[in-house]
């Protein structure tokens, strides 16, 4: 049975799987995704990878991305609101155009769940939950979360998860083995497990935070928006009596690192676009 992990996990902290399981039971809403990445579960992705980044694997990246995205869309239904999805796509592509891979076409889906979370799959697939959108105040917050996911994609964290799985299975040339769909499925399953369940490593989460803040600022959004969103989520969890989580060192360190990054940007300003966000996101 698939585990549901706390939002905190994806966005906010690092720790042990055991800790995460305890927190899950305590949190007011579930979260997972790359925040789960904070949880160190033997680090399917984190340590990466004895397998060199092979050209063959890169060549397979689109289908790896699709297959991981399939796992996400078979776990959660898509929220059937084309206009809202269009708005998320427009914000996401604006951030993507300011990323380190602006030529990639990014696709965005809203997952119909009250859980607050976001996910990404290789080669441009980004998912955000209805629950996460409901907790946002303006467009800069959305740009920050999407920027974080785009950061994972640009740094190929998902692809590395697949690489790591391939290495563990002794596959050094994925493309050569992909005629065996069973092997392809095994490594893609492992990649999806990282995205949906175990999460990326703490260093990868930090890297995605760093990239996300950089991308959203480059796009002209106020990077404080991302920080505000993370702080709000943390506060919400704290109100629910989640003391262990609230004091988790990984979480506070991560927020602090984002604050430090913003401070080094000499108190940047940018657009928050609360009115445009409110006009497009009417979920409550």
């Amino acid at each position: 049975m698939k585990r549901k992990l706390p939002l905190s996990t994806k966005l906010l902290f690092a720790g042990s799987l055991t800790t995460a399981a305890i927190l899950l039971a305590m949190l007011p809403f579930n979260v997972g995704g790359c925040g789960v990445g904070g949880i160190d579960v033997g680090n399917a992705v984190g340590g990466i990878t004895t397998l060199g980044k092979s050209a063959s694997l890169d060549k397979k990246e689109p289908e790896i991305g699709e297959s991981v995205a399939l796992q996400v869309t078979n776990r959660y239904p898509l929220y059937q609101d084309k206009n809202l999805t269009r708005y998320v796509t427009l914000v996401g592509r604006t951030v993507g155009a300011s990323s380190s891979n602006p030529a990639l076409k990014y696709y965005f889906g809203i997952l119909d769940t009250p859980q607050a979370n976001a996910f990404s799959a290789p080669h441009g697939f980004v998912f955000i939950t209805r629950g996460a959108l409901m907790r946002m105040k303006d467009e800069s917050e959305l740009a920050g979360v999407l920027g974080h996911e785009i950061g994972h994609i640009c740094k190929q964290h998902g692809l590395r998860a697949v690489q790591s799985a391939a290495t563990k299975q002794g596959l050094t040339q994925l493309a050569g083995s992909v005629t065996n769909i069973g092997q392809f499925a095994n490594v893609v399953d492992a990649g999806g497990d990282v995205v949906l369940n175990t999460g990326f490593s703490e260093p990868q989460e930090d890297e995605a935070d760093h990239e996300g803040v950089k991308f959203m600022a480059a796009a002209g959004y106020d990077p404080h928006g991302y920080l505000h969103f993370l702080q709000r989520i943390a506060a919400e969890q704290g109100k629910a009596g989640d003391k262990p989580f609230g004091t988790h060192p990984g979480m506070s360190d991560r927020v602090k690192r984002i604050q430090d990054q913003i401070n080094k940007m000499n108190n940047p300003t940018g657009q928050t676009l609360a009115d445009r966000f409110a006009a497009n996101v009417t979920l409550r």
Partner: protein
Amino acid sequence: MNTSLSSRSKKFRRGVIAAVIASAMTAVAAEAPIKAPKDVDVVADKNPLSETVETIPSGTDFQPISRDGSWIKVRTPGGKEGYVSAEDVTPLASLTGASGSTSVNGLTVTNATKGLGPDTEKYAQMKNFKTDNLNQMITWGNDVSAKEVKDFAKGGHVGPAKYRNK
């Protein structure tokens, strides 16, 4: 003798003409015009927010030059070169490199509307996964044109600083 030479000469000329026609057809097939189904921005870089080189009016045919991921390098009717998003123009299947059988994001345009990559399809069948949600996500994403992204960014005064409000 003369008759024989004349006959061979005619055959040779026919052969040359046939070869020229065949060659020309290949070139046409490889560089068949693409059409703008709605107003399409040709942009300077492979970035939807880069500077607009020319806006192609709906219904205009123009020439592809090459393809790179989900971007097509084109020559406009006015002779300028730039890029269009592959999903923003038709037909896509006639373009060099488009096989109609590869994966969604950037390799062929036909993927966007006709299905996922072959390994993805096999994977979905093996896992008994439904593909309709992902296909819908891709279709909805393809409905958002590069020009719309540019207009949206311009409206919010956002986007990369070097392109902002251009």
